[in-house]
């Protein structure tokens, strides 16, 4: 069952021309098209219907969680 909007993060293991071998985790490896993005081996990409559509920013992911923690710790809500 394929969820159309859903794009799943995967790690780029290898690449050749316009295709890349990516790891979705738990041993699930697939070949996807990477012509829509500038991705290097080791990058995480969002994959949608067989195409990488964006490179994920791990630093931003960690900063998001950091930001959320800060918001939750804040004593005073900004007016």
């Amino acid at each position, binding site marked *: 069952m394929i969820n*159309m*909007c*859903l794009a799943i993060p995967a790690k780029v293991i290898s690449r050749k021309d316009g295709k890349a071998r990516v790891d979705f985790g738990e041993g699930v490896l697939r070949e996807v098209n990477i012509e829509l993005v*500038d991705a290097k081996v080791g990058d995480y990409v*969002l994959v949608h219907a*067989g195409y990488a559509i*964006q490179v994920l*920013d791990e630093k*931003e992911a960690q900063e998001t969680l950091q930001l959320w923690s800060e918001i939750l710790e804040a004593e005073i809500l900004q007016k």
Partner: protein
Amino acid sequence: MSETLRFRDPDLANRVAEKIRKLTPRKGTIKICHVCGTHEWTITHYGLRSLLPKNLEVIAGPGCPVCIVPASEIDEAVQLAQKGVVVVCFGDVLRVPGSKESLLDAKAKGADVRVVYGVGDAVRLAKKEAGKDFAFFAVGFETTTPSTALEIINKPPENLSFLVSHRVIPPAMRLLVEMPDLNLDGFIAPGHVSTIIGLKPYEVFPKQYKIPIVVAGFEPLDLLFGIFMILKQLNNGKPLLENEYVRAVTREGNVKAQELMRKVFEVKDGNWRGLGTISSSKLGLRDKYEVYDACSKHNVNVEQGVDIQPGCRCHLVVIGKIKPSECPLFMRACTPEKPVGACMVSVEGTCRIWAKAKEEQLISPDLG
């Protein structure tokens, strides 16, 4: 990614929900609209509505690109299949009702209709079976459109053409905010459409319509934070465009993908099932690529189809005017096994998402 679990942390979720509750005014209703089937899936699957105050509503707009494909386009696909063209489509398009039948009905009667995961598979099939004519039914919003554009630019095999059904979501959002009886207070912008289009197309919402809009990701914490951010804006009295999904969405979006789409497609007025015609909302092949148009190639044209079957209320569900449970056909005459309307067919359809959640609860009552 290692942090995924924190994006689903129930303790964190409860704490954000508490903050949301504090920010929700006691009186009146706040209505936030999202336009993404996958957002509805997360909200329903994780029971997020049960965490929100009763007077804070999150409604599902037309975020299901399969649900809004008009019957006329399904009819065109069926006609192509009946003419002997191998029609290739995404899985959930197969059972979407046309005016009289679906592609699955046509397939049952002997037409060659094949399901694929992506447009790349259609190219592979066409190359492999060079003796047959293939047509790819290109359905989807801006998340999917770039891949179609890419394959067209890369010169598809001669025996492959495209039935283009792509649409763009911001015009539908404008339609909803302009509906006087819908009374929207804020938008959750779609996550993966935004990885492609960036933030600029949403500027009109705080600027012209004066309503908050936040781009949110797909984990439950993403959505809860998105809702929190909207409420903060409402409390501050200053509508803004904000981005919660910073790990995937940048201000400019995917520029490469945008250029490909611009090269191959132009924007036209288009019919949306249940919504009628929305101006500048549909994509069509530019003259240079007209040669790949399946309808022109095979002389197929359906002007108008029957979009809503008798008794069906998909046109109300798709703008969030009613909940699936408020449709008299829901889980009676209309079920995932025997769907009446498109909202019950597509995996991103609001009715189907609610139906599946309901079914799961019957099996495991302790879920959500």
